[in-house]
């Protein structure tokens, strides 16, 4: 598995896409820092980017890599290698290279501006962490969808739909249900509903770190009470971990049974 991971990782790390992806973050972060010079504001701007772009790119990349390396995969399948290790290796290669571009692209400019040692360090680390987790989650989902669908168009479509669902539709449905059920006490419901969506959960984790939470009044207090405590954090991280493990288990199961 590690050999395949290594091949896949090196292959991707050398590809133009990874470079341009990392380069984009590098340029973007640099220009933001150059324009505003205020680390906390840049962290907020980047939050919007990480929540939108990391999942989107991870989804696209995951599907693309799977379909493009199909011949290589078939070649590998003819060898005495376990199936799970082939696919998991490929998946980890994709997720790893995406995370590496993200961490390097965003991390270098911040390190240059001296984020470590500033009070923003914790917020920044949370941002990096969230970006990595989202990359892992969404490339796993993408891999899973691609494995399930032989038809490339269908695979792409479904993957994009999955991204759209978590990024936009889910929030729309949540807002709709909240405004329809406004007569009822909804704090717990909104808490649970937003913890279940990895993008929402990441957003709230960053917002809480940036202390915008203190401005959220009554509802914010509920969140702070839950996610501000050790238990809440453990739950949040557990949910994020589940979002990685779930699709990976799916990949494994599909890969073992699939007929090539």
């Amino acid at each position: 598995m590690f050999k395949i991971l290594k091949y896949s990782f090196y292959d991707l790390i050398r590809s133009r896409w990874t470079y341009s992806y990392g380069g984009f973050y590098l340029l973007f972060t640099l220009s933001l820092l150059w324009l505003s010079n205020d680390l906390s504001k840049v962290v907020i701007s980047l939050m919007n980017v990480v929540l939108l772009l990391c999942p989107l790119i991870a989804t696209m990349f995951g599907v693309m890599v799977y379909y493009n390396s199909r011949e290589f995969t078939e070649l590998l399948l003819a060898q005495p290698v376990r199936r799970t290790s082939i696919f998991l290796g490929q998946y980890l290669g994709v997720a790893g290279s995406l995370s590496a571009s993200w961490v390097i692209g965003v991390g270098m400019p911040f390190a240059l501006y001296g984020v470590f040692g500033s009070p923003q360090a914790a917020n920044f680390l949370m941002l990096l962490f969230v970006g990595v987790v989202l990359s892992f989650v969404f490339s796993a989902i993408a891999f899973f969808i691609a494995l399930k669908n032989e038809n490339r168009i269908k695979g792409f479509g479904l993957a994009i739909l999955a991204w759209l669902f978590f990024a936009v539709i889910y929030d729309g449905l949540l807002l709709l249900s909240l405004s329809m059920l406004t007569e009822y006490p909804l704090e717990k419901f909104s808490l649970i509903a937003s913890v279940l969506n990895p993008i929402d959960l990441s957003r709230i984790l960053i917002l809480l770190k940036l202390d915008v939470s203190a401005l959220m009044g009554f509802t914010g207090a509920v969140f702070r009470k839950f996610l501000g405590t050790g238990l809440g954090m453990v739950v949040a991280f557990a949910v994020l971990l589940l979002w990685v493990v779930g699709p990976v288990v799916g990949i494994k199961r599909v890969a073992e049974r699939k007929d090539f």
Partner: protein
Amino acid sequence: MFRWIFISTLMLAGQAVLSANTLRVCKSCPVSSIKAAIQQARPCDTVFVETGIYKEGNILIDKELTLIGRGQPVLDGEGKTEIVTIAANHVHFEGFVLRNVGTSYSEDRAGIRLKEVSDFYVKGNRVENAFFGIYLQKSKNGTIDGNEVVGEAKDEVSSGNAIHLWYCDNILIINNKTIGHRDGIYLEFVNFSTVQGNYSERNVRYGLHFMFSNDDVYRGNTFHDNGAGVAVMYSRRIGMFSNYFEKNWGPAAYGLLLKEIHDGQIEGNTFQENTVGIFAETSNRIVYSKNQFIQNGWALKISGGCQTNNLTQNNFIGNSFDLAVHSAGTDNKFDGNFWSDYAGYDLDKNGIGDVPHRPMKLFSFVVSKTPESLVLLRSLFVDILNFSEKVSPIFTPENVVDNAPLMKVVEPDR
């Protein structure tokens, strides 16, 4: 023994006559109690009280006297009584530490009470662990200057106000520090008074509280981390200038709460990092100008029944929500402010944006209907929602619009 007392009293009396009008009180002095000194003193005398702890229960000042504490003498109420009661005009009371006024549910005990007096001057005292700190009733023409009132209030019921005014006229409250009481400064039926340069922190209810008070001004005060910064209720013609409202955080925390206020003026204040900067309810004909709203949850919430308010030359910078207006069809004006999230342009370079700005976002409207939807703050869906509403407004009130948004931050006058 008795003869000795008789002689010393005679001597003392002689001394009082000779030194005209000063008296000294200390532990080893001929006069060792403040009560005795007040009794012996004649109007217009000065009493100097030296360092020490005086446990004399309630001290009544019923003559025109100047009382000055030297080296911060402590008057200890031992949690049982009110400490100083001033019941004469022209009293000057300075430099004391008043400690331990017991909580009472049947009477309003205070560290210093001024009872139906005028022309007083209370300066540089420190009141610790008191129920009420400084209590003025039916008094006028006086100054409360540079006092420090520090308590450890836990809830509204069992605590009193640091500086409490009731039926007073023409009072100057200046440079005081009020910490950890129910209200920092409380004014009820107080007219033509000035509250200036005070500092309020960690008061359970409000930093400064007006009730039924007219024609007052408060200027250059700082309100930090109180239940709510300032509450102005049922009052007319209040001027609020150059105050700082910061970090008033919590479920029901406001920088400034206005309730039934008419003809007020709010100018040059700074509202920074409050849950709600200003919350206005049934408040009419108020001019908001040259205020800074920086990084508040809501900069300004205007609920129903607010009419003919004018908002101009303010800066709105980095607030989660700039404006929430609850009722449509009012004639409030929002022209000529700077909004940090204004996205228009200025082709003729006159400093005024060419496209009107709608400061009330759709999401702000949604949150006011369903507070829980705040969970979705800063999500992509909400951004899309706000954008589409901006392009063609349907839900947000039509007339909440800045027709002349400024392109640059308004520089403060200072």
